[in-house]
């Protein structure tokens, strides 16, 4: 059954997919699918929007702010999902095969953008689209098929119930292997609030429950198989910049040394040395047995290495445990499914990670919520037999969560709702409902501020000050200093917004700041972008995300650290340290030109050309 008559899509393609007024880097086209109304339309994206919001997360934030009604329920048909690529996606620039999925999150209730690498984003861009918007909901399972000149909604009854990888492989069989797909697993189908959307190679739109939003719309998967060439306005300039990029990538010890040699797991030893390793729901910051989870140990399980399309670093690891092969785990997953749960057997962690990938679950929130559950259980707040380090029970709980069975139904709600239900809210180590990732902010005060102020909740990807506070690339900043942190966090947040809108892998941010990015963008699009304009776009994107959250009732009171992270640890390298979060937030608001309640000033909105969008 084809819900939407394919002739409608075909007609659209003739009219709008082809030709038109494109700019190198952007097609200036979006495809809007309304599953309730059963319509597909192709719309033009205005130049000014692309210049001001760039694409990806920026475009999605703007679109959702303007096109969803206040109070929209994340899992209702009224919510929309924007899938967007950036102007560099599909070009020859390294690390740009990325896409962003933006929606209102069922986990945090905030605006949420989740990005994903792999090859899917390039196939999507080659369809001749900058964005896909999915609205409404289907009554039956469907998937979306895209290629150049065609957007179809096709039945997915036979795919419903399949795990992510199974569904993707089936779809690639169906549509030929010259395509890529991302799919939800059972967790997304069952509206688990931490459900992800994944491809068949371990790349996922991981956080914030974007998989549940697709599940609520009964969309099992999105397949892209475009072949259009992405034009570059100044190919010689791009050549020159690629040479320069190559040199800088191979010169950077983090990118070419650590990431290439060991993947993100290279971080674990140093993070533990410095006392930042979350152990048993943040009750400790250092583990004697961390070596067992370290990058060197992971190499014993590694059977292959791969990367996103057109990335020379290839930081991903293929691992094998028993007879099962899978992707990852990344550093975050090792910590959240390992030390956070008191598990120090890396083989077990790998198995749990593969399981989460297959079921379509975000490993960070899954681990964080299970850590919360174990703490509740050990304090007899919840009546289940569960101890730290019991990987067999954890495995069973992950499955129960994906299918919302038994206590898994509570876990599926995320740690904040779980802890609230069992009367001990402080057991949830989260900000705005998003579980804190794998860096204890008591040992890196920039991370404390970055967790507290991120629009999507505790997130390491919206301002990874670890690169300054621990790694020392591009600069080393004292991790316990307070003075420089508000400005540093604002700068890194704005830059992260640029990265997520141009859609460049954020690992590259340790070497490439706004300056090379603006040159790359100018070379690809042929339009002049100064570094100041680019950072202003980042600030605009950050601010519109803030406006969205304010519209949904968030205030400065939500910019907090969870109670546990405001109390000092009693042992380990960071014993006694507590970030002065209130002081930093006050200064941060002032640096951002927000008032004492965290509301952007009128002057700022004028400067960013945002008043017109209010």
């Amino acid at each position, binding site marked *: 059954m084809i819900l939407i008559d394919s002739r409608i899509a075909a007609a659209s393609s003739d009219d709008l997919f082809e030709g038109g007024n494109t700019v190198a880097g952007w097609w200036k086209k979006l495809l809007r699918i309304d599953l309730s109304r059963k319509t597909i339309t192709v719309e033009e994206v205005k130049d000014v929007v692309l210049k001001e919001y760039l694409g990806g997360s920026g475009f999605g934030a703007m679109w959702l702010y303007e096109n969803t009604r206040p109070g929209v329920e994340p899992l209702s048909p009224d919510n929309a999902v924007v899938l967007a690529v950036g102007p560099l996606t599909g070009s020859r620039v390294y690390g740009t095969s990325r896409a962003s999925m933006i929606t209102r999150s069922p986990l945090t209730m905030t605006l949420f953008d989740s990005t994903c690498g792999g090859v899917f984003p390039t196939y999507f861009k080659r369809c001749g689209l900058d964005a896909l918007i999915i609205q409404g909901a289907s009554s039956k399972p469907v998937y979306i098929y895209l290629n150049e000149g065609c957007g179809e909604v096709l039945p997915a009854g036979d795919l419903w119930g399949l795990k992510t990888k199974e569904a993707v492989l089936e779809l690639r069989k169906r549509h030929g292997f010259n395509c890529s797909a991302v799919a939800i697993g059972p967790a997304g189908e069952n509206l688990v609030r931490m459900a992800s959307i994944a491809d068949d190679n371990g790349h996922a739109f991981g956080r914030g429950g974007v998989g549940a939003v697709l599940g609520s719309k009964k969309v099992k998967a999105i397949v892209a198989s475009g072949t259009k060439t992405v034009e570059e306005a100044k190919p010689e300039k791009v050549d020159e910049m690629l040479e320069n990029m190559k*040199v800088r990538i*191979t*010169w950077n*010890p*983090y990118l070419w*040394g*650590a990431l290439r*040699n*060991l993947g993100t*797991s*290279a*971080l*674990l*030893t*140093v993070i533990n*040395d*410095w*006392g930042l390793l979350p152990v048993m729901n943040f009750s400790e910051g250092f583990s004697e047995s961390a070596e067992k989870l*370290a*990058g*060197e140990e992971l190499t014993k399980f590694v059977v292959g290495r791969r990367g996103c399309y057109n990335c020379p670093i290839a930081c991903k690891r293929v691992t094998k445990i028993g007879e099962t092969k899978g992707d990852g785990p990344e550093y975050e997953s090792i910590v959240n499914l390992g030390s956070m749960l008191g598990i120090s057997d890396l083989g077990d962690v790998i198995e749990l990670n593969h399981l989460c990938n297959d079921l379509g679950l975000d490993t960070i929130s899954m681990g964080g919520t299970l850590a919360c559950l174990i703490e509740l259980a050990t304090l007899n707040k919840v009546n289940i037999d569960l101890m730290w380090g019991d990987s067999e029970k954890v495995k069973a709980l992950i499955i129960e969560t994906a299918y919302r069975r038994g206590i898994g139904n509570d876990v599926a709600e995320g740690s904040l709702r779980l802890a609230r239900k069992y009367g001990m809210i402080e057991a949830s180590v989260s900000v705005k409902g998003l579980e804190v990732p794998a860096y204890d902010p008591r040992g890196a005060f920039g991370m404390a501020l970055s967790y507290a102020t991120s629009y999507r909740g505790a997130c390491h990807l919206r301002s990874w000050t670890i690169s300054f506070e*621990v*790694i*020392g*690339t591009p*600069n*080393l900043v004292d991790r316990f200093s307070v003075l420089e942190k508000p400005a540093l966090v604002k700068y890194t947040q704005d830059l992260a917004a640029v990265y997520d809108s141009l859609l460049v892998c954020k690992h590259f941010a340790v070497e490439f700041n706004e300056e090379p990015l603006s040159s790359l963008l100018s070379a690809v699009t042929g339009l002049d972008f100064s570094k100041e304009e680019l950072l202003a776009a980042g600030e605009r994107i950050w601010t519109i995300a803030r406006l969205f959250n304010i519209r949904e009732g968030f205030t400065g009171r939500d910019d907090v650290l969870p109670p546990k992270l405001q109390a000092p640890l009693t042992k380990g*390298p*960071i014993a006694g340290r507590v970030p002065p979060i209130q002081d930093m937030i006050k200064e941060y608001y002032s640096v951002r030109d927000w008032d004492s309640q965290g509301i952007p000033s009128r002057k700022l909105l004028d400067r960013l050309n945002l008043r017109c969008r209010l």
Partner: protein
Amino acid sequence: MIAEGIDKEVYEVLRGYASRIARRGYVTAHGGNLSIRSGNNMWITRHACSLEDLRVEDVVKVPVDRPSSRDVIASTETPVHREVYKRTSNLVVMHAHPPYTVAVSYFVDRLVPPDSEGYHVLRRVPIIEGRPGSAALASRVAEALRDSWAVVVRGHGVFASSKFIDHTYQVLCMVEHSAEIFYLKKVYEGSLKVKPVVPQEF
């Protein structure tokens, strides 16, 4: 924390020499690095630290025979130190950017110290080329240090290495001193317009 487990003496020694190198003006704010080998490991200064004021967190222990996850914060020149320890029996490596040596490296292919002390200790200092942090440079530096106490990387700086930390420091200072004399000799030669008198005995 990284300070834990570090032999206090190793840290103190590194801190002392790091500060002496910085005080001599051989490095800028965050330049330079030094290491001490201990068995199959080396203690090396971290990436982006300031030799002027080395903190315990600025010293990291990494294996000599292979890259490790602690390389993520170790000096960008760690591959060079590693290669030197693999190919020589030296136990210390120091790297700095002393200005006269860097300047002289643009004009000659090896530095033959014009001063007697430098000449007797160093004989000649090879000058090589290579991109900082690259495997090729690591290999060239290590090869040169098999026959020499020091090697200059053109336009970049000096690597000095030996079995003893004080000797290595002495070599480093000597290279810069010789380069300074070389430069001054040339300046006087040019401005006085006379041929220098070459000592009969060195």
